[in-house]
């Protein structure tokens, strides 16, 4: 339906005298400027467009949000599910489903608000609880041309996958209930604060947007907020939980590399929503992020393939999958900030560091990070966060030319990254220790020996993954 206000305005102009031409021009000029602002992803100021989302940007964010959900259901579920033994495949799928449900509820109740609403430097306020005031009209602060509720949904999908990542480290032995209870607290103590500090407009470590950030760190799509929080928590959790029965003695091998590879493809596909979507617009920055994501994933894949071929004589499917996922995780914090060549370098470092972590570090220290959440996500996220500090350039992201951060880019930014990453790392680990004991006291963390032997699927869920 044609907008009636516009008609009235147009009709009114017909009555104006000749010399009001300029004034009219100014009105038109502002309207044109707003339209141009849409194309350029800048802020509209006039009354006509400032209340609606822009179709191109909004479309991109809706599909990006859907893609990020697809990463968890069924992407991550398959990637991880293929790597466990047959008797535990449903437990992984169930954990992904259960966490999705849980985090949706939390996000609606207060999670979005605590992460993004105006609040203190460390945690957001309660203003957007129950999505109060979170409607289809864009919010000025997050995504000028994207419906505020779509921003909330997009960010929700990140909040879902983050606890989903650490289930890889404790697979095949942690209780379903324990994972839910642990995650419930963890979201409040780790995820919401981290998201607010790094991405909240008034966040304590949001170097990109907050003029008054104490630590001027950058994290494009969640190297710190997603991969470091979950990855380091995963390490602590698997240390506290102890290894799976038989670990190191019996062969414990993936029950379906086919599922794992399918999951990898889905993760990669969805990761475009994750990284390129983090521009919160289909603009120049999203294009940069898309490109960097592709290159890093490809180079990470090749690096693992070459290393395995060289060191083991055979290049495995799991190796290529791990390299790709590692490349994706590592580029995440840097993806919107680096040039293609920067992305290639990050992909290479990603391949080397995650290979080293999965193939050597774990063997040396003999912790049972079952599906390598630490080896891939913590290591990748940490390396990427650091490298973002080194390689970020205003050439890739115009926002880095802003006064508040300009002087750091290419100079001391890496130190800010180290500070932010370090604080979150230490905090994640400490909280995980505390929550492990709390969860253990409340519901018990580890399944009993019978359950572990029989498999979690039958014992915990009363179902088998495949027909008998």
């Amino acid at each position, binding site marked *: 339906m044609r907008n009636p206000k516009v008609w009235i305005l147009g009709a009114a102009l017909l009555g104006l005298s000749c010399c009001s031409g300029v004034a009219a021009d100014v009105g038109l000029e502002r309207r044109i400027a707003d339209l141009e602002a849409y194309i350029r992803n800048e802020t509209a100021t006039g009354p006509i467009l400032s209340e609606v989302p822009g179709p191109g940007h909004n479309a991109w964010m809706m599909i990006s949000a859907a893609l990020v959900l697809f990463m968890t259901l069924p992407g991550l579920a398959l990637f991880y599910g293929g790597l466990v033994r047959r008797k535990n495949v449903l437990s992984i799928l169930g954990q992904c489903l259960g966490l999705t449900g849980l985090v949706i509820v939390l996000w609606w109740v207060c999670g979005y608000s605590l992460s993004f609403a105006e609040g203190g430097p460390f945690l957001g306020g309660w203003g957007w609880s129950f999505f109060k005031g979170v409607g289809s009209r864009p919010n000025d602060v997050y995504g000028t041309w994207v419906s505020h509720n779509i921003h909330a949904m997009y960010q929700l999908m990140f909040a879902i996958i983050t606890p989903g990542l650490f289930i890889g480290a404790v697979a095949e032995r942690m209780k379903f209930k324990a994972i839910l209870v642990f995650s419930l607290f963890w979201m409040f103590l780790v995820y919401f604060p981290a998201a607010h500090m790094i991405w909240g407009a008034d966040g304590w470590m949001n170097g990109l947007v907050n003029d008054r950030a104490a630590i001027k760190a950058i994290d494009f799509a969640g190297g710190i907020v997603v991969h470091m929080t979950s990855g380091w928590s995963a390490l602590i959790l698997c240390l506290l939980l102890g290894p799976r029965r038989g670990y190191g003695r019996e*062969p414990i*091998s993936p029950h379906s590399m086919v599922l794992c590879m399918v999951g990898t493809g889905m993760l990669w596909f969805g990761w475009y929503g994750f990284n390129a979507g983090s521009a919160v617009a289909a603009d120049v920055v999203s294009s940069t992020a898309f490109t960097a994501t592709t290159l890093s994933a490809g180079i990470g894949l090749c690096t693992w393939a070459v290393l395995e071929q060289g060191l*083991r004589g055979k290049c*495995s499917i799991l*190796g290529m999958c791990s390299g790709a996922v590692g490349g994706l995780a590592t580029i995440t914090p840097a993806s919107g900030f680096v040039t293609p060549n920067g992305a290639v370098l990050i992909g290479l470092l990603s391949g080397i560091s995650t290979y080293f972590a*999965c*193939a050597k570090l774990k063997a040396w220290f003999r912790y049972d990070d079952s599906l390598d959440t630490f*080896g891939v996500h913590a290591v990748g996220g940490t390396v990427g966060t650091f490298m973002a500090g080194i390689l970020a350039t205003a050439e890739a992201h115009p926002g880095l030319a802003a006064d508040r951060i300009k002087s750091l880019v290419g100079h001391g930014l890496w130190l800010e990254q180290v500070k932010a990453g370090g604080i979150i790392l230490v905090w994640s680990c400490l909280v995980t220790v505390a929550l492990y004991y709390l969860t253990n006291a409340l519901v018990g963390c580890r399944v009993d020996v019978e359950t572990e032997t029989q498999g979690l699927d039958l014992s915990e869920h009363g179902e088998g993954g495949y027909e008998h």
Partner: protein
Amino acid sequence: MKKIEAIIKPFKLEEVKDALHEVGIQGMTVSEVKGFGRQKGHTEIYRGAEYTVDFLPKLKLDLVVADNQLSTAVQAIIRGAKTGKIGDGKIFVSGVEEVIRIRTEERGEQAV
């Protein structure tokens, strides 16, 4: 009547079947099994970890034959299954006291 159990390499099934058909033996029951023996298994690598999988996929053939068919049947199996390389498998022969065809309730050699 005798029961022959033969453990063979999976890709030899077609040849063994053909060899048995030639000597007039049609009935047999096959199952997928894992063999442990002198033949070495293979190594699998998952990220850093290397596993030795020491079993090998084999097929087990169960066939019950009349006493007078025993040696032709055994010969046929050997003919079909032999590659001369380690892991070709074994043939075990034992006695069977009774055979019954469920459909007709025939017993003994007619039922084979």
